[in-house]
């Protein structure tokens, strides 16, 4: 049933024929996906009239929808906000979680078990359970208009997932590295950043890709904590844009707005799909 692709097996017609139903199913699925995405991309370069008459791109590639989205509809501002929220929180998450994951998986101390349990419970707590108090704290501190709020929340909310993800990888490293470093007189903190952290770099890269995509696509927290027009990230911006375009019937504009939202993550995926696919199969917890 399973075949580890170590070598390319010779083409045997009979064997391939028994797999025909399988080929059919996955081909239909993938064709549907690509057709849907492809059509929407083409529609975003067309006019509303062309969309309704079924003649996409009849007047050639039309950039108006994007020009309008970027100049009139704040798509650029939204994209910028998404970058501002996503990039710093991805870096902070690693700075906070990598040491904790290392400590929890390698060092025996009294609170170890309790902390580990807390992290696992944290994985299962729905966002809705934590937003209300956070919302009131943000209001009391009067920081609701600041982009730092969402960066902080994104960082903190990822603590359980990222710590948990990295712990598995620290467990797999031999202790001889630390012992050798200790003999050479390397302190634990320096030893961590200079020896242990580089060793788990592949895992750090994988978890950062997941965090990036997760934060980029995050909608609920952003809707609550960044719902002023100048603070909105791209996802919340899309909702507002489409809602208003529905009324004016600007279908081409709506498709362009949708494309602007998904193109960044899809491009990342095209380049990093190997890493992402193996990351999920290696024990990614949340999507």
């Amino acid at each position, binding site marked *: *049933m399973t075949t580890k692709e170590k070598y390319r097996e010779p083409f045997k017609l009979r064997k391939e024929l028994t797999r025909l139903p*399988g080929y059919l199913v996955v081909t239909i699925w993938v064709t549907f996906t690509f057709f849907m995405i492809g059509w929407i991309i083409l529609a975003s370069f067309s006019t509303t009239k062309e969309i309704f008459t079924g003649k996409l791109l009849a007047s050639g590639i039309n950039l108006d929808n994007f020009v309008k989205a970027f100049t009139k509809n704040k798509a650029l501002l939204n994209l910028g906000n998404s970058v501002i929220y996503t990039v710093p929180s991805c870096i902070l998450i690693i700075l906070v979680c990598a040491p904790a994951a290392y400590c929890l998986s390698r060092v025996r101390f009294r609170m170890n078990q309790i902390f580990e349990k807390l992290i696992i419970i944290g994985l299962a707590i729905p966002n809705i*359970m934590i937003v209300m108090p956070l919302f009131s704290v943000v209001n009391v501190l009067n920081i609701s208009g600041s982009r730092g709020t969402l960066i902080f929340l994104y960082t903190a909310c990822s603590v359980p997932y990222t*710590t948990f993800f990295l712990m598995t990888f620290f467990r797999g490293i031999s202790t001889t590295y630390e012992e050798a470093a200790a003999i050479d007189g390397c302190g*634990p903190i320096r030893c961590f950043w200079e020896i242990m952290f580089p060793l788990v770099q592949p895992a750090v890269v994988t978890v950062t890709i997941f965090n990036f995509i997760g934060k980029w696509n995050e909608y609920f927290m952003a809707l609550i904590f960044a719902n002023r027009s100048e603070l909105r990230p791209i*996802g919340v911006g899309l909702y507002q844009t*489409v809602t208003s375009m529905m009324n004016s019937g600007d279908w081409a504009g709506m*498709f362009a707005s949708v494309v602007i939202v998904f193109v960044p993550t899809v491009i990342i995926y095209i380049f990093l*799909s190997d890493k992402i696919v193996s990351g999920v199969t290696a024990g990614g917890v*949340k999507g």
Partner: protein
Amino acid sequence: MKQTKTSIFVFMAPAMILFLLVFAYPVVRTTLMSLFNVQSVNSAVSTWSFAGLGNYTKLFSTRLFLISLGNIGKIWLFCGIATLGLGLILAIILTQGLRGQKFFRAAIYLPNVIAAVAVGYMWLLYVFNNRFGLMKSLFSGLGITSMANYQWLSAEHMFLSMCIAYVFSNTGYFMLMYIAGIEKISLDYYEAATIEGANVFQKFTHITLPLISGVLGTSLVLWTTKTMGFFALSQVFSNVSTITPMVYTYQTLFGSEISADSVNAGIAASSAVVMTIVVMVVSMISKHTVKDEGYEL
């Protein structure tokens, strides 16, 4: 290696402080809130008045909440069967050594990296459109006029349409999980079974299925957590028939077009507690019933 207390503190403190601020404190406060009459999220604690389980009884007699519970139940069960079932089928197909297997896996996972709002609009604006939609052209191309004229976005079909979009965008993730489980099974079992004359179906039920039961259990927990957070799609396919507990809670908290005057933080908190309990209970049950072998969570 010996670690000093200070270094443990330096390693753990930032993560634990964030955890306390953003998980521990809010969970406690939300739970307390659910037992009090609280006007708005911003009301000071001094203005809360104790309500006991009043919020919960009110919650469970609110029609909209019950509808949302019914919806999430249906989503959990039917979309769950579809998503996990399709994920398993695709995983089995894509572990047979098909040509281009890697490409197919990656392509099927693709919708998972697209924001839920965008996926929602792709289906709402294009696929289900009754003038130029993909469903319409697909079915008229196949000559099935009754399906070509199907009103995907009418009020009574909206829920089904939303479910299809949801299943489509989540299947890839569970497929990859199952693939990981299946690929961990040693080939020796299958070889022995082949020698004994077992057919494909027997191999599946007697080898694959029992050996990936741990993965199946994990996927069920993840599915439950995921569906409880069902929000963006429900907002996109906005309709009373598609309301979920998340949307209900959000609207109870911040008001909505439907019921602007119904803001009540205490009830919203009790609804959040109910959702959390459901996730916790399902996680606990599946942890105790399914032995987690093979797949590391």
